[in-house]
Each structure stands twice: as structure tokens, then as C-alpha cells.
């Protein structure tokens, strides 16, 4: 069974441009989470999508946005890129929790470099 897949693996953009990152969850998983892993900062929660809806977002500006498609795959868009947006962006998927623990599985990430 395929795991969580992210594309592209590496992305280089210039300041001010837009970046689009993609994530395909494990088959059957309806929840997709996006995290930013910047150097020395650990993982910061960005966005949570479930069944096509944005359920929660972390403390990031509105230029970080995304969506989830009917097949539960997801896109993260970062507009007006800044140098400090350079980071590893990780996607994870899980079954819907409904008040109980469900394990999330992580993809290998997209390394975004803003120059």
C-alpha cells in the first residue's frame, strides 16, 4: 500500500513568487495535515483539512492557504514568498479522529528554497 506522497521533492522559487506543493494521502484517509519544519524550529502546524473542508489553521499569515480535493489529495499554496519561508514542508494523513486517537503518517516532504 502506498504511503503519503508529496511532490515535488525540491522547489526553488524567488522572493515574491508563488509556490504550490501537493500531497496524496494514504488510501482511505480523509484528513490531511500540513506542517512547516524550518531550521531549528521543529514542526509548526499549518493547516488541517478533512473531507474537503479546512478544519483548523496554525499561526501563519493568510498567504499560506490550501485546499483539499474530492479524492482527499491536498495542495498547499504559499503566495508572495519570503526568504524565511524556506523550509521543509511535511504533509501527514490520518483517518478522521472523532474524539479518539488515530495515527498520522507523514510524507517525505517538499524542500522549498526561496532565493
Amino acid at each position, binding site marked *: 500500500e502506498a504511503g*503519503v506522497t508529496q511532490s515535488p521533492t525540491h522547489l526553488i522559487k524567488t522572493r515574491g513568487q508563488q509556490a504550490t506543493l501537493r500531497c496524496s494521502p494514504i488510501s482511505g484517509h480523509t*484528513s490531511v*495535515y500540513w*506542517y512547516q519544519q524550518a531550521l*531549528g*524550529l*521543529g*514542526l509548526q*502546524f499549518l493547516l*488541517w483539512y*478533512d473531507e474537503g473542508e479546512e*478544519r*483548523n489553521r496554525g499561526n501563519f499569515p493568510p498567504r499560506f492557504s490550501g485546499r483539499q480535493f474530492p479524492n482527499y489529495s491536498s495542495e498547499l499554496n504559499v503566495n508572495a514568498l519570503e526568504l524565511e519561508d524556506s523550509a521543509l514542508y*511535511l504533509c*501527514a494523513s*490520518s483517518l*478522521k*479522529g*472523532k*474524539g*479518539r*486517537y*488515530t*495515527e*498520522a503518517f*507523514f*510524507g*517525505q*516532504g517538499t524542500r522549498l528554497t526561496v532565493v
Partner: protein
Amino acid sequence: AQSVTQLDSQVPVFEEAPVELRCNYSSSVSVYLFWYVQYPNQGLQLLLKYLSGSTLVKGINGFEAEFNKSQTSFHLRKPSVHISDTAEYFCAVSRAYTGGYQKVTFGTGTKLQVIP
């Protein structure tokens, strides 16, 4: 709100020696606790988790961790490390009985360097 502190950013250890990676958390409610491993250029892989029950949790690759509620700690241990254990390790906490991973708070990571 909850938080996680990983006290050591880097831990060098000789091969076949024991290792302990420290993690402390703060929370006013019941928690779930996790340890993840990240190999270079990889995503995160769950090593072990504490949800409830026995405070000693065994995970993959010979790792174990002990939940200590009075000291609010969840230290990760391995009695004998291998070169292949070289990676970054993340401790994480979430509020118990909440669905979803949006409330999981990660630590800043500890880089384990196993020296041959």
C-alpha cells in the same frame, strides 16, 4: 495550551553505548505523548506512543520511553545504539481524547549522532 521541551539539541554517543534523549512537557490536562524519528531527507516515522495504561512504552528499533506524570517527562532510551540510529528525534504531545493531529505540539528535535 501544551508545550514540549527537548533539553538537548545534539547528543553524541559511541556505538553500542546506551542513550537517553530527554523530553519534558507541560499541560493542564491528560495527554498523549509521542516520539518520532526523522532520517536525513525523510519524513517523520512514529517510534512509540503513550496513550494510557503502562507507563513504560516499547517501540520499534529497540527504543523505549517512560511516562513520568509527576516529573512531566517522557524520556526516550535505548540500551545499545547502532550507527543506523543516527537521526533526529522529535518528542510530541497532544491533548488526550481529541481527534486529529492539529493539536499535536512538537519539540524542536534532538540530533543523535552515533560515533563508530
